[in-house]
């Protein structure tokens, strides 16, 4: 990349790249703009781009009429709850696989990966019936467990690839200096593992926040997160573009920001370490 390109070519590339970027980003940009229009301006022909009276009315209506905060809190509970549960179970497992690997470690890892490939519809029916039986339908607890289970393989894998990069010599050096297991973990390894764990948390929060098969099938209102909240706008009566836009922006803004900060880790997590 350090090559010198002619200024003319650089400007040409700039124009083309910005054009492509804006075309791809356009639906989000348009949603953002529409969310500040009145319903009438939102469907005006021809469409208005920025020359309208900006209003926050839609955002207020979304909260007062459809209790946006309730769904938002559910999304937060579900994504943080399933991530916390995932870390508790995955950190020790990934740790053991990275630092005390056996002949079977690779098989275990690949087997875990294969569970991720089980299509959700293959297990939807029993899970649905069990949820009814145990009164878990439309409960946060039930969904937290399901989201935890579907993302567990990704968490283990991601942590494993990060832990694997912590040099084993450091561990041996600490042992030579007489560090016990507790010290080994708290003073030597933990500080080195924190960045990897943080990236894993970010990716898992993104995946749980946007998960839309289980959350749509296992909730009605009580435990329904933002995915289900937005889906309720699909009815014909819900064709209020400005309000739909405001609700959409509220639903995607937090994760868009988190996502922008974690794009590098995303590649690694989603390819199970196959592309770094």
């Amino acid at each position, binding site marked *: 990349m350090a090559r010198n390109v002619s200024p003319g070519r650089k400007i040409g590339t700039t124009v083309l790249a910005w054009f492509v970027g804006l075309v791809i980003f356009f639906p989000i940009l348009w949603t953002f703009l529409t969310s500040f229009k009145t319903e009438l301006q939102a469907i005006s022909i021809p469409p208005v781009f920025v020359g309208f009276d900006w209003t926050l009315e839609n955002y207020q209506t979304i909260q007062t009429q459809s209790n946006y905060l309730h769904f938002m809190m559910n999304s937060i509970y579900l994504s943080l709850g399933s991530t916390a549960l995932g870390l508790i179970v995955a950190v020790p497992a990934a740790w053991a696989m990275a630092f005390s690997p056996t002949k079977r470690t690779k098989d275990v890892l690949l087997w875990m990966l294969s569970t991720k490939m089980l299509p959700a519809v293959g297990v939807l029916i029993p899970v649905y019936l069990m949820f009814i039986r145990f009164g878990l339908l439309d409960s946060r607890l039930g969904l937290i467990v399901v989201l935890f289970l579907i993302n567990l393989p990704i968490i283990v894998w991601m942590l494993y690839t990060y832990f694997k990069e912590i040099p084993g010599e450091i561990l041996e050096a600490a042992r030579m200096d007489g560090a016990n297991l507790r010290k080994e973990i708290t003073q030597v390894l933990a500080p080195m593992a924190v960045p990897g764990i943080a990236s894993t948390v970010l990716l898992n929060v993104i995946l749980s926040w946007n998960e839309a098969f289980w959350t749509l099938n296992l909730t009605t209102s009580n435990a329904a997160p933002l995915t289900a909240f937005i889906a309720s706008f699909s009815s014909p009566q819900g064709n209020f573009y400005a309000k739909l836009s405001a609700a*959409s922006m509220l639903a995607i803004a937090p994760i868009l920001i988190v996502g922008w900060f974690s794009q590098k880790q995303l590649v690694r997590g989603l390819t199970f370490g196959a592309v770094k």
Partner: protein
Amino acid sequence: MATLHTKNAARAMMAPAVIVLLIWMIVPLAMTLYFSTLNYTLYNPFSTPFVGFENYSYFLNDPTFLAALANTLVLVLGVLAITVGGGILIALLLDQDFYGVNIVRLLVIAPFFVMPTVAALVWKNMMMNPVYGVIGQFLQALGIAPIDWMTDVPLLSIVIIVAWQWLPFATLILLTALQSLSMDQKEAAEMDGAGALSIFWYITLPHMSRAITVVILIQTIFLLSIYAEILVTTQGGPGSQSTNITYLVAQQATSYGDIGAASAGGIVAVILANIVAIFLVRLIGKNLDA
């Protein structure tokens, strides 16, 4: 270094993850397999006689199944073609030196973080609506009659929406692979008089081939399970023109209450996904040794 003590400790540390995943994989799957042999509906859940393979023959002979299978293939292959082809081109573009490269990268990656229900509804209403949608108005300004996307070309509409969501993923991964290509190799080829096209064909593309394979396999896993995008846009219609296997199975259970047929469909979906999964696991397993 691995004493018996640490080995046992390691086993204990792995146990919870292995056990919960084992239960999660085996119990529901065994139940699905069992239900698939019963005449089991939610309307009469107390009488569930054993019917053998009847659900399978019902599900597989249902004309909707063949339509759904075809739609699933079109959906997966269509989205793959757009995202891999587009992803390579955009990755090559973003690998260049230009002004605002970091901002453009953020713009391109953004759709991946948009939840499926939002992506689908924004496209359905604000982009593709024949009267108020941006695309329709744009076409009209050019003098082309707008079409009703969701009714006229429902499957294509869903392909476009899903491709928009996955294009950033493909781009990001291919760009990551592209950036690990050493400059020396390219420069050496240039000095030998190779043109841009042959550099791409003989050096860049082979270098990206692994990443391309990974993109194809991982996306296929997710694309086989497309659900929310269909639910909030066409609901599988008109007729079954945009029903895929996942949507069909979920519909059998939640709308028709036919647990037996839905379970048989679920098993069919598992078998289809496994065919892809075998390749993916092998590929990643190979990488694990390296």
